[in-house]
């Protein structure tokens, strides 16, 4: 282990800048090496504690390396996901896609290690801008539009965050990124929380997430599902632990995401809604704010990145191989994509918090933390939401994608198959980690911010989970005709700004255009006549006044010139004669003047 702080973001940024020059057989090893070095740097940093990379900039102290247990666990899972995500996209030739992904990860790691708001904001915006390209690289008109909406929303979020940071600096006088006084919130507290909350997809600021993640490239969405929201959860845990309002917002997210995911027809949009729901658990845990809750939020972030990455890789494999993402165009794929099916089902069991799979311990921690501080309503509703998670992700997704009726066309069926080796390898790695974290949560406990005494493997919790999952399955199979996917989209909060945009265009095309035409006509009738009279006067004045003076001078000069020309015969002797006469006249005049 190194004793020197190495910033993993720097490795990724330098690696990304060199990448275009690394071609041929060296490209793939290089692609794998750079995120691996970044992971090694994070692992090295984790053995340290304190503040590193401190620079004085004007009046401010910038801290690029605040290392403690909270930053270390988030940085570790982000760096690990960068390795798995790059492995998944190893066969992608377009260097720009890898560059965008690495800058995105660098932004996330930079934010996590930032100890001040200025460097945090810098990395925060780096994340927003680089991730936009992961949407645009899918190169469809819908992706282009979704990318612009994503960028617009995150720019607004960035401005809100910056406003909060500036107000806080004015009030407090420093830019250190520490725990806020959440019991006495000021305007800047709300603004900064709003900025972080937008990236965490807090309802109603969440619509960018399903909109963008379902339109990103097949590999771009694997990166996007991990970094933006979980980095935001880290910032909330760092700055807003114990802020009560987050409990309510988290519970709303957990339930809202469930309902939309149950209705959804697009598999990647379903998974995106699932992120809203699962991040809700983390946000609620941050709101609870106790040691168990923060441990739960951190553990759930780790588990979530593992299983959600795996699920997006499964969905990405289906998209990559078939070009389709809708249940109504897929189905029965177990025959053609058996490996993808197994990996996806492991992800489904993990998100459902089944025993021995990733989220079993972490979700239990959050719910127990709620009971511990007597926020029972929140824990009950989160349990209710957990049942919904199993319905849409544990049952609906695998059933309608891999089993059930096949809606594939002959062409889709022909194309379907397990993806290239590197994509399967990435899924296998994530699946292994999902089972490892679920079966031996002690490994994860060792990394959590606070000491852990929570043990999910007792008879009661296992009985509770098996009953919950078992009878939710019974309800699913009895009522599944009501869940039959339909080729429809679900209207959400983005309706307001998408239709708002259309309304703006309509206003520009109709009332504003009419007003412009009417104004032009009025100007022509009322304004143009007098203007023509005035113009004619000035024309007359110009012709007779100004031109008269100018032309008079010109005529005078021309007349003098004519006279002068008359005395010029072109013969040298006449010229000498006139010159001598003129000189003699001047001389005589001078003498007479001197004599007088």
């Amino acid at each position, binding site marked *: 282990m190194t004793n020197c702080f190495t910033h993993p973001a720097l490795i990724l940024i330098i690696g990304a800048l060199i990448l275009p020059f690394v071609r041929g057989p060296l490209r793939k090893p290089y692609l794998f090496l750079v995120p691996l070095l970044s992971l090694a740097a994070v692992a090295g940093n984790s053995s340290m504690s304190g503040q590193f990379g401190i620079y004085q900039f004007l009046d401010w102290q910038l801290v690029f390396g605040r290392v403690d247990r909270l930053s270390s666990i988030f940085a570790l899972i982000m760096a690990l996901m960068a390795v798995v995500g790059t492995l998944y996209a190893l066969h992608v030739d377009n260097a720009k896609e890898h560059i965008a992904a690495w800058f995105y990860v660098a932004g996330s790691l930079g934010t996590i290690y930032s100890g001040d708001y200025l460097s945090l904001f810098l990395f925060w915006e780096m994340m927003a801008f680089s991730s936009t390209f992961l949407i645009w690289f899918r190169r469809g008109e819908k992706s282009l539009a979704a990318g612009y909406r994503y960028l617009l929303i995150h720019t607004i979020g960035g401005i809100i965050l910056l406003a909060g940071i500036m107000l806080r600096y004015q009030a407090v006088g420093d830019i250190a990124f520490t725990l806020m006084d959440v019991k006495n919130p000021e305007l800047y507290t709300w603004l900064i929380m709003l900025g972080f909350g937008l990236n965490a997809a807090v309802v109603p600021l969440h619509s960018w997430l399903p909109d963008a993640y379902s339109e990103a*490239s097949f590999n771009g969405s694997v990166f996007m599902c991990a970094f933006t929201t979980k980095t935001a959860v880290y910032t909330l845990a760092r700055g807003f632990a114990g802020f009560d309002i987050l409990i309510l917002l988290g519970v709303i997210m957990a339930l809202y995401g469930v309902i939309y995911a149950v209705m959804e027809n697009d598999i990647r949009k379903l998974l995106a809604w699932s992120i809203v729901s699962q991040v809700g658990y983390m946000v609620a845990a941050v709101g609870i704010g106790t040691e168990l809750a923060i441990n739960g939020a951190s553990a759930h972030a780790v588990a979530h990145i593992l299983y959600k990455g795996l699920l997006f890789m499964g969905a990405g494999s289906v998209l990559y191989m078939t070009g389709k993402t809708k249940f109504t165009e897929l189905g029965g794929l177990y025959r053609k994509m*058996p490996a993808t099916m197994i990996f996806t089902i492991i992800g489904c069991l993990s998100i459902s918090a089944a025993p021995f799979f990733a989220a079993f311990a972490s979700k239990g921690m959050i719910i127990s933390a709620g009971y511990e501080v007597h926020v029972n309503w929140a824990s009950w509703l989160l349990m209710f939401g957990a049942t919904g998670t199993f319905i849409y992700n544990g049952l609906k997704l695998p059933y309608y994608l891999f089993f059930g009726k096949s809606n594939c066309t002959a062409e889709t069926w022909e194309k379907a198959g397990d993806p290239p080796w590197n994509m399967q390898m990435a899924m296998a790695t994530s699946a292994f980690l999902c089972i490892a974290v679920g079966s031996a949560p002690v490994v994860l406990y060792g990394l959590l911010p606070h000491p852990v005494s929570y043990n999910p493997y007792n008879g*009661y919790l296992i*009985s509770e989970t098996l*009953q*919950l999952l*078992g*009878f939710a399955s*019974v309800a699913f199979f009895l009522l599944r005709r009501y869940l039959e996917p339909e080729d429809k989209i679900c209207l959400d909060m983005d309706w307001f700004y998408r239709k708002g945009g259309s309304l703006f265009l309509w206003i520009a095309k109709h009332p504003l255009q009419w007003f412009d035409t009417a104004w032009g006509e009025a100007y022509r009738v009322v304004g143009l006549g007098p203007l023509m009279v005035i113009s004619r006067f000035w024309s007359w004045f110009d012709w007779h006044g100004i031109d008269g003076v100018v032309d008079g001078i010109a005529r005078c000069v021309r007349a003098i010139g004519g006279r002068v020309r008359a005395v010029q015969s072109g013969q040298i002797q006449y010229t000498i004669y006139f010159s001598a006469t003129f000189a003699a006249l001047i001389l005589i005049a001078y003498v007479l003047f001197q004599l007088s």
Partner: protein
Amino acid sequence: MNKLIEYLSERIRTVVWTCYGILALVMAHSLYVDKSHAHSWAEQYIPFFWSIFGFAAAAAIIGFARWYGHSGIMTRPDYYDRDAEEEPAAASHGATSTDHA
């Protein structure tokens, strides 16, 4: 794997009854399990509490999503494309250039 799935599909009735049997065992186990970890009175004293909760919660979520979706929230896929369709270059559907297939 495919053969196993097809083998089970052909014997779906047996699979379903086996699942019901497992559920019955889980319910029976819940009567004897140590409930000192329970958080509420209901968990401790209502038999098969989590079985009832799981079924009721799933049914409520499915029912609510169905009602909510069909109350106007679910709409045609080209809902947002209508304005774009007026333009010559209307948005296209399906796979795009970087999708493999």
